Every structure is written in C-alpha cells, then in structure tokens.
C-alpha cells in the first residue's frame, strides 16, 4: 500500500482526483482511499502528524506501507525555481537540530535537495536557508521511521515561493496547479517505488504458513523442530517457487520415534 501524506487541501485535491480516491469516513480526520493508494490530510504544521499517521497505520491490516509526503515548500531564490519539483535527501528539524536522511532508492528525473522544517511560516528567509523550508517533513520522517523501515519513506516537494510570502499569500497561490504540473512524474515514481515493496514480500505465502502450522500440529513438533521445518520450507520455496509442499504421511499412532522419522523425512523432501 502507498500512503500519500499532505498538509493543505489544495495539495490533496489534485492527487485525490488523479488517483480517484474516495473519502473514508470511518476516520475522524480526512482519509481518502482507492485500492492500494491512500491519502491522509495532516493539516499544516506538526501537531496532528503523530496522531493521524499512527491511527491510520494501526487501523489498516496492511503491514507493507510506503509513506510519501507530497507538498509545497518555500525555496531559496538562488538555488530553486518556483514550480520545480524536488526529492528530499536531507531533512533538518530547525527546532531540535535533528537531521534525517531519506534513502533515495529508485531512479528518477527530479532534482534532489535538502530541506529545513520550521515551526512558523518563513516570509523573510531568502538568505537563511540553502534549500527548501516546510512545516511538516521532519515530523513525518520522525513518526513514519518509527513504524516502517527507511526504504518505505519518500519526500517530494514543489517550490511555491521564495520564502518571501505570508501564510495568507501562500495559500492564495495556485497550489493545485503546481501539483498538477508534476502528476506524471509523481505517478511514475509511485510505480517504481512500489516495485521496492515486492523485494520485501515474505518468502512463504499464507498457504505455505498454513501447511507449516498444520505439520507442526499433526507431528507435535518441538520448538526447535518447528524452526528447522520453517527454514527447510523457505529453502524449498526459494528453489521451487510454484511446487506444492510434500504431503504429510498419516500415522495412526504417533510416538516419539515415529515422529522423529517422519520429521526427518519431511525435511529431506524439502531439502532435495
């Protein structure tokens, strides 16, 4: 599952429209979903981030979630262009000084840049910040990296201003259009990023795990034997992706020695 994280409604709307997301009213905050893509609207600043992300994460059955923060940011006038889209490779939290480094693991055509997360809108920071500024990214990294591994985080920012506007002026900008202009590259990134999730697919399927569970029950395997069986089963599955696991011999009376013989036979079958 891929979960988009946005701050402003104007950032969310083009993404909601593009991915045909529908509001999920079971949440007390804005969540939109369509199949394997979701969007959580976090609001401006850090205050809602922890609650909304963890509430969503705890409510979905899916463990394999990628979080992608998409939003606008103020940019240094000499190093950034208004309307340009960037990947973040470094996020600094201005208040705590904490530094975060998102892993950039897929090929992309965007520029990479650093960002500082600030507490208040920066309207006269043209020379103070080298790259971008926003009000959420560091907290998003902080919260998400505590629940998922680092390869499942990505940060995409589009420059809306050169840190010379007040909040009222920023939200009056055509933010949706800024996002819309980059939907093609954002979608391409989603496809490539999603491929990384496949690398994390467990070796054993649900069916495989059920077979292991049944075998453990039927043969009353010890903890060590169960672990050994699981390892053998993984080796078997790597070697033979589609083959079914061997059938377990039915024995009317199972004593310690027949159990051992049966267990050894199964391990041998799985290992050859």
């Amino acid at each position, binding site marked *: 599952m891929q979960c988009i994280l946005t701050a402003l409604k104007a950032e969310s709307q083009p993404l909601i429209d593009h991915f045909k997301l529908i509001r999920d009213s079971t949440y007390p905050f804005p969540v939109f979903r369509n199949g394997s893509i979701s969007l959580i609207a976090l609001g401006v600043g850090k205050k809602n981030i922890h609650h909304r992300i963890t509430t969503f994460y705890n409510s979905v059955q899916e463990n394999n979630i990628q979080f992608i923060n998409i939003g606008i940011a103020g940019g240094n006038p000499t190093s950034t262009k208004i309307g340009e889209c960037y990947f973040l*490779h*470094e996020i600094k939290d201005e208040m705590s000084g904490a*530094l975060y*480094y998102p*892993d*950039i*693991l*897929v*090929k992309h055509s965007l520029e*990479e840049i*650093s960002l500082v997360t600030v507490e208040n809108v920066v309207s006269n920071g043209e020379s103070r910040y080298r790259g971008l500024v926003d009000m959420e990214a560091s907290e998003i990294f902080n919260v998400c*990296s505590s629940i*998922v*591994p*680092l*390869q499942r985080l990505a940060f995409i920012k589009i420059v809306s201003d050169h840190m010379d506007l007040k909040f009222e002026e920023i939200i009056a900008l055509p933010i949706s259009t800024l996002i819309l202009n980059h939907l093609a590259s954002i979608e391409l990134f989603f496809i490539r990023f999603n491929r*990384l999730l496949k*690398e*994390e697919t*467990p*070796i054993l399927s649900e069916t495989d795990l059920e077979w292991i569970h049944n075998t453990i029950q039927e043969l009353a395997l010890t903890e060590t034997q169960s672990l*050994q069986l699981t*390892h*053998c089963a*993984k*080796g*078997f599955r*790597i*070697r033979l992706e589609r083959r079914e696991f061997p059938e377990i011999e039915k024995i009317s009376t199972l004593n310690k020695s027949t159990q051992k013989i049966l267990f050894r036979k199964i*391990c041998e079958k799985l*290992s050859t």
Partner: protein
Amino acid sequence: MDYPLAQIALSKFPKAKFVEIEHYKDIFNRPKQHFQIQKSSMKLILAKKTAPFLYPASEMIQEYETPNVFYTTPILNCLYNCDYCFLQGMYPSGNLVIFVNENDFFKSIQEKLKNLENPLKPLVIPISYNTDLMAMENIIPITSNWIKFVRELDNLKIEIRTKSALFSSIENISPPKNVILSWTLSPLEICEKYERTAPPVHRRINSMKSAIEKGWLVRLCIDPVLLIDRWEDKYNRFITDLFREIDGKKLVDITLGVFRMNKDYFNRIRKRESRSDIYYDNYIIENGTVTPPIELRTHAMETLKKHILTIHPKMRILIWE
C-alpha cells in the same frame, strides 16, 4: 574533502549530488535500513576513519603461519553482492564507505611494525577483507596506493583478495615481493547462481593469468566451497580445467574453505529473509561459527586437496578447518 582520494572519487562522479554529513555512521549505522534494496542503488560515502586502523584477524581466515595477522578496512562494503558474503550480516547498510585518509592507515602500520608480537615473523595484512578493492580501482586507486606504500617495507606482506577482472588497472606497476594478489574463483554453476554481480569466472581467470605472467605473487582461493548437489564433480572438473589454463606451479599457494559465517551475521541474514537457498541448508554451530558438519567439511576439503595434489603434488594448500 581536501584529501586526494576524496578529490579523485568526486571527479569520477561529476553528476553526483553531494550531501554533507557530520559522521559516516549517521547514515551507515542507522537502524531499519534494507541492505539488499540499498545494494541495488548503492550510495558512496566518503569518510575519515579514526583509530583503530588494524583489527586482529578473524578466525574465519586460513592460518598464515605467523601470529602477526591483522586486517584493515580501507573500504566498507563491496561493489559485488555475493549470496554467501558475510558483509550483509555484518553491516546495517548496503552503501559503500571509502575512507579517504589513507596516510593514517599507513602510519598505523608503520607503528605496528615496530611492536610486533613476534618480530621474527612478518606482519600479514589482508587489505581487501571487507570489500573488493581491485574492483574499485577504476574509481579510486587505493590498491595501487597501497602497493606503492608497502613496496619498501620489510617484514610486511599484504594480501589483496578479489573477484575483479581489473588487473589491467595495476598491470603497469612492477610487482613487489610482499604483495599477494588472491583471486577467488568458483565453478561456473556457483558463479552463475551465487556470484551473479561479480565478473564472469573466465574474465577473472584471464586477469589472474595476466598477473602471473607479469610476475606477481598470486594466490588461488577456492573459498567458500559450497556443498551443492554433486559438488565433488563440479569442483574437481573446475580445478582440472583451471590448471589447463593457468600454470599452477607459478601460484604461491591455494586456500580452501567451506562456507562458514559468524552465527550472529548468519542469523541476521536469515531474519532478513535472504533469497538465497544457502541460508536455509542444514549447518552446525561450532564456536560461534555456522558451518557444515565436521565430517562433511573434512571430506570436502580432503577430496579437493587430494585432487589438487594429483595435478600439482607440491602445491602448498592452506585449509580452513
């Protein structure tokens, strides 16, 4: 960044995006990284190493008949990604770290030479233990710099172990007497299945042949020997074919060893659900090392040793047992 090695590395990647960091561990040692996903998009970290520069040799390496064996780490991690490699269990990150302050490494060796446990025996340093230095030579000339450094030093031997086909990158250097180039070779079936990112074995053999012809001291490493189905046929045939290609009499020695790995590294790799069947075979744990049972490994080593000796009866063979 002012170190010459850093400048060379930077010049090789003119389009790279640079991120300045405080300490390499801020990136390299982070928890919750995915080693294998990072391996498919490795990042280069240039860093300055602090002491120690030398580490006592691992028990995983063959006995070199001197107590003065240490290894060093000019680079952490490897360009290649062999299935059986311990680095994926040792390091939390798949990224590459290059230590650019090579003179500090050299100074520590000069100090060590003054304080050897047994000064009558040489100091032996495998310098490519946690990486493949020669594979990186076109990016950063660490191998050639080390060769230049050790050339004039008495009582020091370095071993540069590699799977690279890049001997050409150092072929114009005259071979010193205290540098051993060691090529790790495996039968084709093993290379294709477990060493997919390393150069094809015939290219490694060609590199090795060139090195022998140019007068370098060359060691052959058949290590790890993987006890796959019909391993005996495959390894014996490989050895026979290999000695048709290279002049075995010109080798310094051969090292042999079965698959073995520190238990903690092995368990970490297994926990990360490695896609290699190596990690789901049956092994025993002996003194903290995961390895095939003793009777299997003794049989394997004896078989291969015997086969090598039938071809080259005087061959010096070092075995990890």
